[in-house]
């Protein structure tokens, strides 16, 4: 790894900045079960950070800790140089941490457009009474401005043609894309993607990879993603954290991690004689 305080230059020549989020000795227990044990790593500005590991390694739990859905039993989360106290998930979302879910959590009864517009809620400041005024109080302008941002994201993710479709009717791959759009609409500082390509066919995976790379490139969004497909991870990510049974067994650039014996063992299994 290059100089840790100044950031580093990636293989394809992107400048990665300083630490945005730092996780220190995170431990998460559910009763007697330890899902995460003393894991520390950092997330840097503008990088694509992957968390990989076999099933049940605690990857999703880690993401839930970052997004506040789980409160760690031990350890500290530092965000933008400030230690984060215990917060509700919605408060963390308002800080600028958006996420998608492994099992897609969309608002099925609402149109694609409305779904993505909910991503803008944290940016809309007009109160209820001001909104009743609509044109007179500037609420209409606020709505239009946010709508414009959403339209740009819709264009970016190439979902113009399903704009008005109720989300419940969409096929799986498109739902995943809408969920990404909603998270993106919040213009997050950190974007958390929980298995964005799970259950997709090759073509859909390629599309999704392209979107992830493009949005990192265009908007400079910092991305943390969980993925099973090793090929995808190696192509996409700048740095990788490897987890197994709740412990961190590797951390570094994709190439370093790939040649790490512990990682190879965790993935391929070790002969026990």
């Amino acid at each position: 790894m290059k100089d840790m305080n100044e950031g580093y230059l990636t293989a394809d020549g992107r400048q990665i900045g300083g630490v945005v989020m730092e996780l220190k000795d995170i431990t998460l227990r559910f009763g007697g079960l330890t899902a995460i044990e003393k894991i520390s790593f950092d997330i840097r500005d503008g990088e694509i950070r992957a968390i990989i590991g076999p099933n049940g390694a605690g990857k999703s739990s880690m993401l839930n800790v970052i997004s506040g859905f789980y409160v760690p039993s031990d350890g500290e989360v530092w965000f933008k140089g400030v230690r984060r106290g215990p917060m509700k998930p919605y408060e963390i979302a308002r800080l600028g941490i958006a996420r998608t879910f492994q099992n897609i959590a969309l608002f099925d009864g609402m149109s694609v457009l409305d779904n993505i517009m909910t991503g803008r809620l944290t940016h809309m400041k007009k109160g209820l009474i001001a909104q009743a005024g609509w044109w007179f109080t500037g609420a209409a302008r606020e709505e239009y401005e946010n709508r414009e941002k959403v339209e740009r994201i819709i264009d970016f993710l190439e979902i113009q043609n399903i704009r008005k479709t109720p989300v419940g009717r969409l096929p799986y791959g498109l739902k995943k894309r809408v969920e990404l759009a909603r998270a993106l609409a919040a213009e997050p500082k950190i974007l958390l993607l929980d298995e964005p390509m799970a259950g997709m066919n090759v073509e859909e995976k390629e599309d999704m990879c392209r979107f992830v790379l493009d949005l990192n490139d265009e908007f400079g969004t910092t991305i943390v993603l969980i993925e099973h497909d090793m090929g995808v991870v190696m192509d996409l990510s700048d740095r990788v954290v490897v987890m197994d049974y709740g412990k961190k067994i590797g951390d570094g650039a994709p190439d370093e991690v790939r040649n790490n014996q512990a990682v190879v063992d965790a993935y391929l299994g070790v002969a026990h004689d």
Partner: protein
Amino acid sequence: MPDQLLYAMEVTLNGLMAGVLYALVALGFVLIFKASGIFNYAQGVLALFAALTLVGIQEGQVPFAHLINAITGGHLTHFGWQVPAVIAIVLTAGVMVLLAIVIEKLVLKHLVSQAPIILFMATIGLAYFLEGFGDVMWGSDIKTLDVGLPQGINDTIETTTANWFGYGFFIDNLDIVATVVAVLLVTALTLFSQFSKQGRALRAVADDHQAALSVGISLRFIWVLVWSIAGFVALVAGIMWGSKSGVQFSLSLIALKALPVLMLGGFTSIPGAIVGGLIIGVGEKLFEFSIGPMIGGATENWFAYVLALVFLVFRPQGLFGERIIERV
């Protein structure tokens, strides 16, 4: 025009008006059900409580007078002032918001992500508690509610129709007011839910709690908001029904009339509540008018339920309810 047809027209009109009143109650149910999946058994009692509070404030009653007198041995009943209707309504709306906050703090907060049946049981408890609380707070005697709404037969309609058809229609002024108010209320609620950001958040919470949290929506705020709106709708229903038939315990039973309306219109649709209310109102009046005399009358008590049952067989989600699709 033949007399029978004229009668039928009058009955239909009256049915429509009655239907609006049913719809007003059903609306409160739909709002809470849409936003939180809770069938709020307490909605009827909420209307009773709102009406009691409104009368109490208007008449300058001392809240908890019985309790205070029992402890201090005094004879307090009234402050001795009259509050104008408009101010009393605003104050009562404030009380309903306060009540929403208390309900969220004491009940809903502790039942997050519980099964719907448990939340339903909680609202049953809430209903009986509120009923008793209302009694303790304002006394259990029958009260008359008068916020200055016009009452009695509308003369203009009577004379006009008498001129046209040779038969004057009897339409109650209060029913006309109720219709206008209901139309305004539904328009406002629809605009709110479709176009405001809180409305969008509300629909989001109704669909998926986790996803709502992930976009920065506070569930607790939305619940307080929804219960406040339901409280406000209950207040409107309480005013209409209270002006019509006095404020007393039986007011809370209007909730039972809302049930078939909901089955007909669908639990999740605001327009459904309105159309369902109108169908039930007109259906029950016309049935009583046409078939009633043949089978000894009093059909209004059960007709709505039978109609709802028939609907349940053919369209379980109601007229406007979301279709229940299970992907296999």
